[in-house]
């Protein structure tokens, strides 16, 4: 099974950043090796001829829910699991103004 050339430590660093994950610099080659092997296996999809892709989608349409109000779990239940709360709202570090990062 071949490894994919699309994956290298630089690509893994960029993808981790998009995924909001932090990977230690020294671990990047190991992650890249594992992912390259998986993506190398996935690359067999490229061997399916393009003309085979003409078939129409056959999925059933998803019906929409009727637009009528129904009782829910209530605001209290929705915020009950939040790690920090103030006046019923979730609290996060300051994002604007002095000390913020814009």
């Amino acid at each position, binding site marked *: 099974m071949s490894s994919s050339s699309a994956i290298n430590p630089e690509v893994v660093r960029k993808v981790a950043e998009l995924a909001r*994950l932090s990977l230690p610099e020294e671990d990047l080659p190991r992650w890249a090796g*594992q992912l390259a092997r*998986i993506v190398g296996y996935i690359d067999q999809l490229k061997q399916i001829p393009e003309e085979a892709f003409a*078939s129409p989608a056959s999925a059933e349409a998803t019906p929409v*829910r009727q637009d009528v109000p129904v009782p829910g779990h209530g605001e209290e239940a929705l915020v009950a*699991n939040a*790690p*920090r709360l103030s006046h019923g709202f979730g609290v996060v570090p300051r994002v604007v103004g002095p000390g913020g990062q814009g």
Partner: protein
Amino acid sequence: MSSLGVVETAADVAAGRRTAVSAVEDALSRVSRHEEQVRAFLEITGEQALAEARVVDARVKAGETLPLGGVALAVKDNMWVEGRQATCASKILEGFRPPGDGTVAARLRKAGAVFLGRANMDEFAMGSSTENSSSHVTRNPWDLERVPGGSSGGSAAAVAARFVPGGFGSDTGGSIRQPAACCGVVGFKPTYGRVSRYGLVAFASSLDQIGPLTRSVADAARLYSVIAGRDPMDSTTSARVVGSPETALSRGVSGMRIGFLQEAEVEGLDPAVAADLDRARAIFRDAGASVTTVSVPRARVAIAIYYVVASAEASSNLARFDGVRYGPRASEADLASLYVATRTEGFGPEVKRRILLGTFALASGYYEAYYGAAMRARQLLSDDFSRAFQGVDVIVCPSIPAPAFRVGEKTDDPLTMYLSDIFTVPASLAGLPAISVPSALTAEGLPLGIQVLGPRFGEDAVFAAARAFEAGTEFPDALPPAVA
């Protein structure tokens, strides 16, 4: 001590031969003797289960007829059950308490079932061995050195060890059927759209489906008929009539056209699995079916398709776990590091691997080559199945390529682990109903499973064929050695 099945327990409770409380006490007593070895549960909620059983007994006394009265269940930790945590065996959801029952739990509760405990699983249902749980590894009751399969390994082990008559899992690429086969129990994945996912923590939304694990096909049919059907809380559920799975059990396979999957019979197939397929052919023939071979050519690339589609959807679904609305928070320095530190500390290595893979497949510059190609190949696979079902009523193939492997054997090699699902992923991608039925023990005493796949919404045919196969096998009724 007796360890009755789902249908028997409900019948006994309905007829007043035993109480729901005594059924739960029996289950707790079995758990107390063997759970230390098997470790099927993340949490045993005995007091709550007994309180629920008392409610069931009062309902029976008041004259209600309950299809699941007093049936104790092991429920995978990604499903909402009122009053219990639902953590997906992940540190990022530690302590999470859902606002109430999900639709499946609500329907089970209404039917008289009782929730004995939260079953262990691979973190966020990502894995084939239950080794990716952030808590502990569950052991296979047939051999404690081996994995129970996954990701619903806790539910499968709890049923195999006879702690409970039934369990529930979720199946995204085989997570009900593969552990069921590894543990010698029945595992059923309904058609995509048959069972509501309201209250199931999402992994890959175009694939996820909830289903039962039991010791018999009849028990699976009972549990399935309680949870199936349209739910306004999940728009992907179908309004089609559910059918009569329990009536279908006695239909037999006389005159049924059964196609054995050609692509499963590859060179290098485990000889025990190949012999199992031969026995299955004979069983179906003896039962009066017309047995042929069918080809689903793109089944060969199913794993490749699956790891793009499932990982892409997971990377999107799991973006919500960021330390703001639920779970522990790892940093308060600024918003960006709150997200990054919480996710980096909260997710285990396999979940990170899938998020990275999915983010890669959806990233600008790679999207068309990976996600686009996988989606088109998925459509071709579905078309292959549609063609195959023009000539046969159900398709048969193995559930697992080899019996349960040893704990630790595949943890350093993600791709080899992914290939454990080679026979279960095709039905997932095409949204088909599929059941794994215990078929035989290998020379080493490890279970194997045979899988029956039906066309979309063809559950009745699947149950009819599965029951006929079950009746023809000689899978032992004996207790697994670890709990005997």
